[in-house]
């Protein structure tokens, strides 16, 4: 019934005659999209523009974007600049339901919401992002996260970490624990380290920042390290896995991070724990034993459940990183594939692009780009393309990339939410 009601409500909404599916040949097919981030909201909008009836399920009234949230932590940006509502989608006829999806019946194609209602779908898109694993790092649970914020989902946690940095006296020690792959936003911990170092250098110059890493290599590593040497010498120390950087346990009461080689007591501790696909992906049975979701690289349909597509951070997208840019590109390709499938046709293969900017200081941007194509059932990097910004670029180049980073954020948030 709610599915039917949703269709009727859609027709009753302003400008609905324009979009009424029966007029435009998609029959009465309905797609439900779960998750209102760059992937989900982008996909809902793209489907609507292909005349598909869409319901977007998202508990929050406003989305808080992660890209540029490291600037918020470093006091360079207001959290309000990260927040976006869903009126733009509503105006185009996307039905928004501010509820959490709790279960999926893949066989009868229904999604259950936390108020007990059910939505029927012809195709379901899951874009739930990540769930932080509070069972993976001894000592780190939801309570510990109030003392040692992860700030890996933008919002209250972002502000908590910022307040802790502001309250820390000069001469304090800040520690960041970075997880093993895969995780959301591979260059994110290092951009965060850079911008926190910038904050310390300009505001609390006797302080130290230590990055304890569960890896020996990371995204844009040479660019980050060259910038750290130039901008933050003696302030920022990166400890890789092979030097005992992996955090094996934490104690929230004393803000202590235990590694294989010793322990570090911090004044501010930012613990970025291991992650997996958002809870609904686990509940829907589209996540495998890794916690992430295997998909077909052409349609983004789950390899484990028919009729369910997974995009964005939750998906195993081969060589594509878990980024907002990637999620939005996948959203467009997935929407096109679903519209084609609903017409009873076979979607064509699509190449995808990723471009990720990071700021190492205000006015100093670096990037990594990649082009991807479906191959051997995965998304593989197109050889000879992509890569990072040059190591030897002049300051004007870095400044331009910092400006392009901002422009990208304006553009993508405008196209998804505007």
């Amino acid at each position: 019934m709610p599915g039917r009601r949703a269709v009727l409500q859609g027709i009753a909404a302003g400008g609905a005659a324009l979009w009424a599916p029966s007029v435009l040949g998609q029959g009465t097919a309905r797609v439900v999209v779960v998750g209102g981030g760059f992937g989900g909201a982008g996909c809902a909008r793209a489907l609507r523009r292909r005349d598909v009836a869409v319901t977007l399920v998202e508990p929050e009234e406003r989305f808080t974007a992660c890209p540029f949230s490291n600037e918020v932590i470093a006091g360079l940006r207001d959290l309000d600049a990260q927040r976006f509502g869903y009126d733009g989608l509503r105006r185009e006829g996307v039905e928004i339901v501010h509820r959490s999806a709790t279960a999926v019946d893949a066989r009868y194609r229904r999604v259950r919401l936390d108020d007990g209602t059910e939505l029927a779908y012809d195709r379901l898109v899951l874009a739930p992002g990540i769930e932080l694993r509070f069972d993976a790092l001894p000592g780190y649970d939801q309570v510990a996260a109030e003392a040692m914020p992860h700030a890996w989902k933008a919002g209250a946690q972002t502000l908590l970490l910022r307040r802790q940095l502001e309250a820390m006296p000069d001469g304090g020690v800040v520690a960041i624990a970075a997880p093993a792959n895969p995780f959301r936003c591979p260059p994110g911990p290092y951009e965060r380290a850079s911008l926190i170092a910038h904050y310390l250098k300009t505001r609390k110059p006797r302080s130290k920042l230590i990055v304890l890493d569960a890896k020996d290599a990371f995204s844009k590593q040479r660019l980050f390290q060259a910038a750290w040497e130039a901008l933050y010498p003696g302030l920022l120390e990166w400890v890789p896995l092979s030097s005992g950087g992996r955090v094996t346990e934490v104690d929230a009461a004393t803000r202590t991070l235990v590694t294989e080689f010793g322990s570090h007591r911090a004044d501010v501790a930012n613990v970025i724990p291991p992650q997996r696909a958002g809870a609904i992906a686990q509940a829907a049975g589209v996540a495998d034993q890794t916690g992430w979701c295997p998909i077909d690289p052409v349609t983004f349909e789950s390899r484990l459940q028919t009729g369910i597509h997974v995009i964005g951070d939750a998906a195993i997208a081969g060589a594509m990183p878990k980024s907002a840019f990637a999620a939005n590109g996948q959203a467009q390709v997935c929407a096109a594939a679903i519209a084609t499938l609903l017409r009873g046709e076979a979607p064509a293969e699509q190449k995808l692009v990723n471009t990720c900017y990071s700021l190492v200081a205000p006015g100093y941007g670096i990037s990594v780009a990649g082009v991807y194509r479906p191959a051997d059932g995965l998304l593989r990097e197109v050889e000879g393309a992509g890569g990072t910004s040059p190591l030897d670029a002049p300051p004007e180049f870095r400044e331009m990339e910092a400006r392009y980073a901002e422009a990208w954020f304006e553009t993508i948030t405008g196209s998804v939410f505007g």
Partner: protein
Amino acid sequence: MTTRLLLVALAVLAAAPAAAQPSGAASCAGCHAAAGPVPGLEGRPAAEIAAAMAAFRSGERPATVMDRIAKGFSDDETRAIAEWLAGRQDHARP
């Protein structure tokens, strides 16, 4: 009624190029918009877009990131994307 028919016609027109979106084209709008420092592409002449991509690929035209992206597309793919973008005039700035 006329308005409604017109709206439906517009919607069909708007939907038509989307159906034929060539490989890779979905990603351009991630950065390229009508306003801002990264130029908008929709409605620009196809030859201009294809030539720019060729120059980025060869390194003849300096770039921050487009040189790295252009190398991921063949001439045929680039041409198809350029023609598709050129045909999206109705999506360009009003």
